[in-house]
């Protein structure tokens, strides 16, 4: 009886809408599940790290083309990462002498400058960690019960004598 109750609860918990919302905007999935404070903290933490990445490494630390593997991690932040990359690719890159699209080196005419050295490494790292943490949050939102439903599950488990 106890196993049956827990199994049903796990099935009942799966919530793809919360997962999609959590990916669209960090913290929104938990907000949707009735946990506004948790959602706000997740959003604040992930965005702190992502905007910290752009603050430290410049817009060049988010680059789908030149730093593909870093961007795989950063993409976990969701549409915000793709928007930052789109702005970078379309607004700040110039064609260099070899005909390739590059972020220009520092100079009076450069709208944004190439990120190198520690600033680039740390910026890329902040962004990738933000993305991976948000993926954890998406997974958590997918299987976290809604707050009202969790109370019901706990009550049912308590009446069965099973741990919640």
């Amino acid at each position, binding site marked *: 009886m106890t196993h049956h109750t827990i199994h049903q609860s796990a099935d009942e918990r799966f919530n793809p809408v919360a997962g999609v919302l959590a990916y669209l905007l960090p913290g929104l999935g938990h907000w949707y599940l009735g946990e506004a404070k948790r959602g706000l903290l997740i959003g604040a933490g992930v965005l702190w*790290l992502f905007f910290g990445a752009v603050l*430290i490494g410049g*817009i060049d630390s988010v680059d789908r083309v030149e730093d593909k593997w870093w961007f795989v991690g950063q993409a976990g932040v969701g549409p915000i990462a793709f928007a930052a990359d789109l702005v970078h690719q379309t607004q700040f890159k110039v064609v260099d002498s070899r005909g390739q699209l590059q972020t220009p080196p520092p100079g009076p005419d450069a709208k944004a400058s*190439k990120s190198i050295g520690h600033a*680039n490494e740390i910026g890329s790292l902040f962004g990738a960690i933000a993305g991976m943490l948000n993926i*954890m949050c998406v997974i958590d939102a997918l299987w976290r019960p809604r707050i009202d439903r969790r109370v019901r599950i706990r009550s049912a488990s308590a009446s069965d004598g099973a741990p919640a």
Partner: protein
Amino acid sequence: MILRLLAYTPFLDPMPMPGGMWWLTLAPLALGIAVVYKAIKLDDMRRYNKQVAMMTTQIIVVMVALAIGIQLVVGWLTPLLGG
């Protein structure tokens, strides 16, 4: 350095860091990780602030300890073994 700071445009240019000070970014990184991780992990949010402070401190202390350990190996043990 002053000229680099004056020329810096936040969010567009990479932040000018005085030589050797880049490791200070470990603190905001550790804080961000702790804020998100504990928001998922904790059931009882009343302990949240304390847990975040503790995890941030743990990350920083362990990273500093690792840095000291690696410095000892590279700067002291390796030359000693090399004669």
